[in-house]
């Protein structure tokens, strides 16, 4: 299916990537070429086939609902915000989102 410029605009917005106006048409062509090639999958009979999301057949492991030690443990606010572009008192600072 050919993708038009307006679809690229919509998808770029969904993906939160600012694409300048002049990139929309070239991107529409690139994506159409790639998706056109992908459409050969329509030749495959998938009637009655289960969708596969992972090759490993494992149950989700369960553990006690307690704070753990180590990297994934709690009580490490300094580490959590250490790489943030802007913080204040262990909070991430973002532009105002509520008027």
């Amino acid at each position, binding site marked *: 299916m050919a993708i038009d410029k307006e679809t690229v605009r919509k998808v770029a917005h969904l993906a939160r*990537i600012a694409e300048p106006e002049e990139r929309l048409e070239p991107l529409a062509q690139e994506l159409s070429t790639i998706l056109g090639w992908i459409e050969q*999958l329509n030749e495959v009979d998938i009637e009655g086939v*289960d969708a*596969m999301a992972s090759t*490993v057949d494992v149950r989700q*492991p369960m553990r006690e609902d307690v704070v753990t030690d180590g990297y994934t443990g709690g009580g490490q606010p300094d580490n959590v915000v250490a790489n943030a572009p802007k913080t204040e008192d262990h909070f991430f600072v973002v532009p105002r989102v509520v008027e």
Partner: protein
Amino acid sequence: MTNIADMKLAELRDSLKEKKVSSLEATDAYLSRIEKAKSLNAFVIDTPDKARAMAKSADQKLAKGEGGALEGVPLGIKDLFCTEGEQTTAASHILEGFKPRYESTVTANLWRDGAVMLGKLNMDEFAMGSSNETSYFGNVINPWRRNDGGNTDLTPGGSSGGSAASVAGRLCAAATATDTGGSIRQPASLTATVGVKPTYGRCSRWGIVAFASSLDQAGPIAQDVRDSAIMLKSMAGHDPKDSTSIDCPVPDYEAVLGQSVKGLKVGVPKEYRLDGMPAEIETLWAQGIEWMKDAGCEIVDISLPLTKYALPVYYIVAPAEASSNLARYDGVKYGHRADDFNDIQSMYENTRAEGFGDEVKRRILIGTYVLSAGYYDAYYLRAQKVRKKIFDEFTDAFNKVDLILTPSTPSAAFALGEQSADPLQMYLNDIFTVTGNLAGLPGASVPAGLDKQGLPLGLQLLARPFDEETMFKGMYALEQAANFTAKPTEWWS
């Protein structure tokens, strides 16, 4: 003392244990080689202070006759692995300056066993690419050149281009790498190194920057089969922090090397014979079949008719998972934030526009599209079903054979810029490797010969899930038969 650059990892490991060489000597020798090889651009950063500190600590243990399986051995680490306190970027501008407060499980396993970190290796941005040309930090140059007397810069392959180039250029004893569609095996093939992608679930993905979580798997790029076996033993293992990591014992892969392959059934899939494939690759493959036959294997012709659909499936599944995984880069929690914005929406949009390169954006857009309302069933769900059929096809094949032998790549190393203008042409580089990711199988590339331009070509072995031992037996048999000894001329130092 033997020149460090002439030592395999196994020899260095043994020499360290026997105190014929110290870790600090080996580390300094590699750091000096790295310094002289800046033109290869294999490293994003080197970490000499950390390397020397780790080497000194290793030497103390070695002096007491203690230490782990890799005590004192200097390694390069692909910049996709989070390393505590050391910049980790996935070769993306959006993560420039990011210094993780934690260590990936795979690298932690290597340090537990005594290895030394030399630095972080260049790669395609977020591991998306087959030529290392999408890195924000520039192209990696293949140590191998054509034998035409020219000086055309060739790609080392990708996405683990820095890992492959640094091992081929002897800038580290071995390197970590990752493989989502062929990113270990394809660069290994293009640089005459050994690349091993283990079974999905064999190595923990915790602390590895995520690209496509159902396909990503870590593995080594090393100088030979033995070195890759030693590396994988240390890297692998169950990790409760990765719910897809499998709780089963890690065998001693080195111990199986040299065991007979007599009676093993080796499958040869006719669908891996492509129109337009260089005759040399076809010839090398036929040679590989003869080698396995001479070693006592039984060759079995098999058919994997869905092979041609693997790449289209991959280019739905991988971008879909990537679009979700890469949503975390929003300029809030870590990494780059745009200076110029009006509100939070434009902050997200400008940050991501500035931070991601063209190929990453392209894949996020494809992924967002195939997951969006109205297209999910037609693309994503269909791809997951075809993936299941490909998985079943391999399961059936492995009821008949123990290993599958194929070429690793459809071409030898190509010139930088030669394929980068056409994304589809670039994607075809992974045509022989991507099936292994979709089915979660272990796969490896072993150097097997040179083409008429003097460039290396690899052969690939695939094995049953969690049967890396049989794969290593086969790899060793191939290596013995190929007796590949060519090395690139050291033009870069």
